[in-house]
């Protein structure tokens, strides 16, 4: 147990702190958020979300979940085949391509985009926020003004215009969405930095002559890690939603890449003849978005992070 947890910093509160608020401080392992008996009544949502995400990720990552059917091979006889057609569980699309295998490859692409956007935008946001917070007076106002100015623009607007230059590849989508959506993270991290920068334990470490690098890594980062984790978890559905919106509009990934967004785009066009082409990818998108959201909310509550 480090002496510099916030419990130590706010000594008097220890006497009055109710069990709940100690849980909010949260030094317990993250996963225990799921099985915490005190929340057992409310844990059903998070547990279900976790299972759904586990399913989606294993679908994306395990090669055996591929049905052995090539997702871009067209079967002329099976155009718009309904679900439960032998060999094609979810049916086929308007070109006779197997929807299940397209959905599985789509999972890989969409989740890759989501997680990558999460990592990249959280990293940019953390760097900006922490640097701004630590640098203090001459730089902090300048960096915050810049941030505020960018914050006014919606993610999709920035991403769309960036895509003009970046093209329509996977990396392009990831970079465009990350540059479009790091500002919220930076804002939160900066206020966290300002809160902790002059905390007693930081002063104590400084007084002991700890080097700045060690100060940040050993004393500062562990204390903002919960916030960073929660922000990261909130950014992943943002990335998935951003990708699917861009692809739906025809501005993101282009076919034959089959992300969930591209599949929804195709399904949308085929809606008059078959609802299934839209239903499957749409269901996956909603499931993943809601699951990430619920899990992130739960984690935020468990770790005592308020957005």
């Amino acid at each position: 147990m480090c002496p510099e947890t916030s419990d130590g910093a706010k000594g008097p509160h220890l006497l009055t702190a109710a069990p709940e608020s100690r849980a909010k401080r949260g030094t317990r392992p993250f996963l225990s958020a799921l099985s915490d008996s005190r929340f057992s009544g409310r844990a059903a949502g998070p547990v279900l979300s976790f299972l759904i995400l586990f399913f989606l990720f294993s679908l994306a990552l395990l090669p055996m979940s591929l049905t052995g059917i090539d997702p871009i091979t067209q079967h002329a006889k099976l155009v718009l085949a309904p679900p439960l057609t032998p060999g094609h569980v979810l049916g086929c699309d308007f070109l006779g391509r197997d929807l299940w295998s397209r959905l599985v490859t789509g999972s890989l692409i969409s989740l890759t985009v989501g997680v990558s956007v999460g990592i990249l935008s959280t990293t940019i946001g953390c760097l900006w926020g922490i640097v701004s917070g630590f640098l203090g007076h001459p730089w902090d106002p300048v960096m915050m003004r810049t941030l505020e100015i960018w914050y006014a623009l919606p993610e999709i607007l920035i991403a769309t215009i960036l895509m003009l230059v970046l093209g329509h590849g996977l990396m392009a989508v990831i970079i465009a969405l990350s540059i479009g959506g790091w500002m919220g993270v930076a804002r939160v991290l900066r206020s966290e930095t300002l809160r902790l920068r002059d905390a007693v334990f930081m002063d104590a470490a400084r007084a002991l002559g700890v080097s700045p690098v060690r100060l940040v890594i050993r004393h500062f980062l562990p204390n903002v890690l919960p916030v960073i984790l929660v922000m990261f978890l909130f950014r992943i559905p943002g990335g998935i939603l951003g990708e699917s919106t861009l692809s739906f509009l025809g501005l993101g990934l282009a076919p034959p890449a089959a992300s969930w967004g591209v599949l929804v785009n195709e399904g949308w066009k085929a809606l008059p003849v078959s609802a299934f082409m839209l239903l499957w990818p749409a269901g996956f998108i909603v499931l993943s978005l809601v699951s990430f959201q619920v899990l992130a909310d739960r984690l935020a509550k468990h770790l005592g992070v308020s957005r």
Partner: protein
Amino acid sequence: MTRLVRRLFSSVVLLWAVFTLTFLLTRFAPGNPFAQGRHLPPDVMANLLKVYHLDRPLWVQYALTLRQTLAGDWGTSYKATGIPVSEIIRQTLPVSLTLGILAFGASLVLGMVTGLLIGIGPRRIAPAFRYATTLLVGLPSFLLAAVLIDLLGLRLGIFPVALWEGWQSTVLPVLALSIAPAGYLARVFAASMEETKESPFYRTAVAKGITPLRRILFHLVLPSLNAVLALVGPLAAAFLTGSFVVETVFAIPGMGRVFVLSVMNRDYPLIMGTTLVYTLFLTVAIIIGDLLQESADPRVRSL
């Protein structure tokens, strides 16, 4: 007052930054806006580039475009040849604004009512609404639009599924645009009421035993509205992004559709014009939101 001046100044900076960035991005974008799907003779191409000043050095183009933009001349569209950008915007902006204002009103009403139900509704119903809002926040607008079209448009045939003619055609787009923000608003409003319930003045009001209506209206709802006012800016952004999707889906001749098409067509003057209008609109929304928030709760001024 100084705050307002500073705000206005930073809006000008934002407009300039967006102008510069859009200019640079469009000029560095790979591909030629005039050679999409067709081959033009070299002299025709040279003429086209000359007409639009694309053969000049970059900084000359920049200065020229900036001066023209400031003077109100936003150039002519590359794709819809000869039609000025300002004319296209003049025709499509009212449609988008109507859609946006209707959606804003709808989401405000829906969100506040749902928020109230979560906050002070019967114990049996409140959780259901809470879960519903979680689901709604994760529901992309294009899916909502698809469901609405399929259910209310095609199956029941109550509302037209596309275009922008008569009030009936506004119902589905407005719903598609406003339901997700309404869910978000409800969540924020409910959370804010939850917070207000903890405050000393609310507990005092309960202890005093004033009538429930007065207590709820003046001691719970009114103080909790600040959190809703803080959402004006984000909501504007949400409606803007939503309008890209909804206008495309419902084939509404609004600015969102023009923007998406202009990006697809690499129609640089049109991209520039729509982006600048959007930026202006967003900064105005944010300033209005800030002013409302400040007048409602002077404490935010010190932040």
